[in-house]
């Protein structure tokens, strides 16, 4: 298996399961993002309550938990994608390189250019394959040598060989798995630092899923990845760190999402600190 130096870039189940990663935590640099007591509201409804966790650089952080536990909501709070939703509001602090993303003078457009996002359902634009990748480059004012940038992004997304002869064809003619890799290519073309993935494989078959997961290993060389997934095996396979969320009913019978446990993936799956985590990962959860 991999040796210790590989741990920051190439996680694998075997390594995590043996618990070798314990040393890795101490050596990992300052987190690229940090959530402190983050709550997300839709109007007066508090969808997620008091989340505190780091996002480590060049690592894959997974967010798992049952439906309605707020993991996607927290993910969207990381690049201010909740902003366009009427009534959505975030309290607490989401910092990126120490800077509060919700500070008054922060431009959400700039935030999203640094922190990209891949969605649950592949959502290529109804344009050609080339124009899908070039769109982000164009709006970011990257001029000239567009072809090179497009090729680079498609190559990084492990899609180039499949599409290089049909760049002018509609992106909608691709298979679901190819579309999702195109969406990843589109995201990495603008060179963000962090890529947020909201259940990126839930609409894909197992082979396409495996390709995306392989791709995530590769991408941690250059990017920090946060992935929301319903699939615990996927979290175990691809992530270095895992955050387990659940939904709790408070004294007024209102449901809130809560972060129950955050730790290294290997530890969370083999030796969870919280009973609720254990119940969930062993399938005893209702």
């Amino acid at each position, binding site marked *: 298996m991999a040796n210790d130096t590989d741990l920051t870039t190439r996680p694998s189940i075997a390594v995590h399961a043996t618990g070798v990663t314990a040393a890795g935590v101490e050596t990992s640099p300052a987190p690229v993002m940090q959530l402190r007591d983050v709550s997300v509201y839709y109007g007066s409804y508090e969808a997620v309550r008091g989340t505190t966790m780091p996002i480590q650089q060049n690592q894959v952080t997974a967010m798992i938990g049952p439906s309605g536990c707020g993991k996607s909501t927290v993910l969207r709070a990381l690049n201010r994608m909740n902003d366009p939703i009427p009534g959505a509001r975030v309290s607490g602090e989401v910092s990126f390189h120490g800077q509060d993303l919700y500070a008054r003078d922060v431009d959400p457009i700039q935030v*999203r*250019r640094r922190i990209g*996002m891949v*969605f649950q359902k592949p959502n290529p*634009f109804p344009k050609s394959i080339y124009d899908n990748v070039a769109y982000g480059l164009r*709006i970011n004012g990257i001029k000239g040598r567009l072809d090179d940038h497009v090729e680079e992004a498609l190559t990084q997304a492990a899609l180039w060989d499949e599409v290089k002869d049909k760049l002018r064809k*509609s992106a909608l003619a691709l298979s679901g798995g190819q579309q999702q890799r195109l969406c990843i290519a589109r*995201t990495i073309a603008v060179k963000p630092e962090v890529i947020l993935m909201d259940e990126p494989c839930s609409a894909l078959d197992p082979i396409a899923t495996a390709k995306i997961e392989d791709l995530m290993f590769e991408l941690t060389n250059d990017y920090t990845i946060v992935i929301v997934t319903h699939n615990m095996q996927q979290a175990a396979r691809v992530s270095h760190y895992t955050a387990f969320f659940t939904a709790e009913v408070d004294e007024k019978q209102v449901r809130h999402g809560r972060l129950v446990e955050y730790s290294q993936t290997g530890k969370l799956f083999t030796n969870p600190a919280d009973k609720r985590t254990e119940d969930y990962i062993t399938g005893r959860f209702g």
Partner: protein
Amino acid sequence: MTVTNEPPAARPALTRRGGNAVGDRLFSWWTLGTGLLVLAILGLILITTVREAWPAFDAMGLRFLTERIWDPNPATGDAIFGALSFAYGTAISSLIALLFAVPVSVGIALFLTELAPRRLRGAAVTVIDLLAAVPSVVFGLWGILVVAPALVPVYQWMHDVLGGVPVLGRLFGPVGSGRNFMTAGLILAIMVTPIITSITREVFSTVPRADKDAALALGATRWEMIRGAVFPHSFGGVVGAVMLGLGRAMGETIAVALVIGGATNITANIFAPGNSMAAVIVQQFGESTGTFTAALIGLGVVLFAMTVLINVLAQVVVRRAEARMKGSVA
């Protein structure tokens, strides 16, 4: 335990048509009938108008389309019926209308779908729909009594400033009464704005949230999001809306008849009076007889044909543009 073991005979046989089947069949006949009725009416209109117009077509031949002179009562010789001047008037006034109405309508629709606070949307939509409910004769009277006189100084100023520019200046020639192609176009623009707005608004609202999210997540501003996600998705629908508006503009009768000036005229000058096919029909039908009447009905046939032709062209344009924009699917 509570399962009743009915004898098979009491249950409906699999082959029997139940009571619902009658309703289903009625429904299918009804919809088929109404669908065919539309085609039948369209066909009958075409057949009867062509037949009624035949004496004029017969007398003029192809000249009916290429002749710019329209003289039902010449001092000497035969009457001359040429549709070209009026076809030009219809085309130029509708074109001016679209030039103003399309950007305004698309702007309003974008505002309503992307920018306006939810509370404002309902009210704004109501106001715009009310605009569509104003009878066209009211627009015509407003145009002749208020708009045309008020615009004369503006036209004069434009003529003074732009009239001297080579080529382009020919568009802004000498100004007469204010009843001209331009005023007709502006009134038409106001009249077609509600229909184009309400359809483009519907089209924009069908753009998937996912497409807009994709653009925003790449760091798009609102305008970049609209250009990248909203427009490509709704191009065909917007063209359809514009075509409906164009159809309305080309067919508009009384408002145009009042403000276009009533001259048989082909000129680049948009400040010159002219006439449109629909307007000529309404102005002259009452006093016409024989071949003259046939010629007026012939104008209707030409108008009908122009509308169909433009719609077919629009479909070709949409198909080409979408293939270019979205990439070919095959």
